[in-house]
């Protein structure tokens, strides 16, 4: 028998509204706006009020997927196969290296996300500019 509210930040846009996850016996059962939060002051938009709808969604991705020609076809027709993070990151590193060597750094672009933290977005653009060597950086919440 445990009911508590866990403070967190809405993942949907760069405003970063404060909210609480209502947790009953380890399961998220609701959202409450954080009344003392300096940004949102107890208010949320419809996204914030529903910020947890993906948490227990059956379609939520829980492992990296790698598209392989010989993988079994899914219901959507894509041939994705579950992979470990090591496999996925190794593949991405190899392919990025190959594409950069063959076609140049500006043949690669980076698309970041409002669902990441400010710090994660910073790291992505740093990786694009300092490691790959391109300014092709964009963001899904560039409203």
């Amino acid at each position, binding site marked *: 028998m445990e009911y508590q509210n866990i403070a967190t930040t809405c993942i949907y846009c760069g405003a970063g509204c404060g909210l609480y996850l209502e947790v009953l016996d380890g399961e998220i059962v609701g959202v409450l706006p*954080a*009344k003392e939060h300096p940004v949102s002051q107890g208010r949320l938009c419809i996204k914030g*009020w529903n910020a947890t709808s993906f948490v227990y969604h059956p379609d939520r991705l829980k492992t990296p997927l790698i598209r392989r020609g010989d993988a079994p076809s899914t219901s959507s027709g894509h041939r994705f196969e579950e992979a470990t993070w090591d496999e996925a990151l190794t593949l991405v590193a190899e392919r990025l290296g190959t594409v950069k060597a063959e076609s140049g750094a500006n043949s690669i672009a980076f698309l970041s996300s409002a669902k990441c933290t400010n710090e994660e977005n910073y790291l992505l653009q740093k990786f694009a500019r300092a490691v790959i060597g391109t300014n092709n950086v964009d963001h899904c919440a560039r409203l």
Partner: protein
Amino acid sequence: MIEEIRAHVAEKLQELDGVIGLRRTAEGTAPCLFREGDDLSQLELDPRYPLASVVSLLQKRYPEARFGIAARGCDARALVEMAKREQVDPDRLYLLGVVCTAEEAEECHCTDPAPDPAPWPQAEVIGTPVEGAPPNPIVAAYEGTSLEERRMFWQGQFLKCIKCYGCRNVCPECFCEACALEDKVWVEPGVLVPPFPMFHLIRAMHMSGRCVACRQCELTCPAHIPLTVLYDLIRRDVEDLLGYVPGADITVSPPLSLTLEDAPLRMELE
């Protein structure tokens, strides 16, 4: 007063399964279920959250458990209306009433700032009740306006709505499993501004006989719509026309929640 409340909660935790109140940590203040042995120095009274909804949630999950609540007047009124609609069980609730200060009552335009222990089998009230504050001056100003001015006033207010559904989500009296505001017959999904005036008037009508003036809707509205003015007017009409004050008397049935089982409206089919 807070020390006295903490002492009462500590004492009651020896016999109850838990007490619902606000817990302050470094991350902020939010509703919490305090259990025996918890650090009660974290129990606070501000800012106000819809604690009655937490009582309902926990009582439904634990049908045998007995909980307590550190409740302000508005929480207690909300619990009365929820009890009438079988959302909380008064017999399994200990109400530790907390009176608001005169300043708090004034801030909320609250006419009834002290919890009433009378409806509850187990209750006590801490603190000295203060007089109710004068009603919201916007209501009086509104009374002096013409119908056209009133329409313009609400049109201007409702135009700001971003349809976040926060007023419904935060409301302790909004617990229907199917909500008219999510029925596409009434409210087209994905379209802003919501239909004037139906969106807010559907909710206002559904709040008649239910709204206990806790002001949570107005406090959570990102568009700063003065929703308590709308609900104050509904509350006044319900009192004038039907003689009903939501949250006041737990033994009086809500006038708009009667079933038709004994009413003469049932048609006899030949």
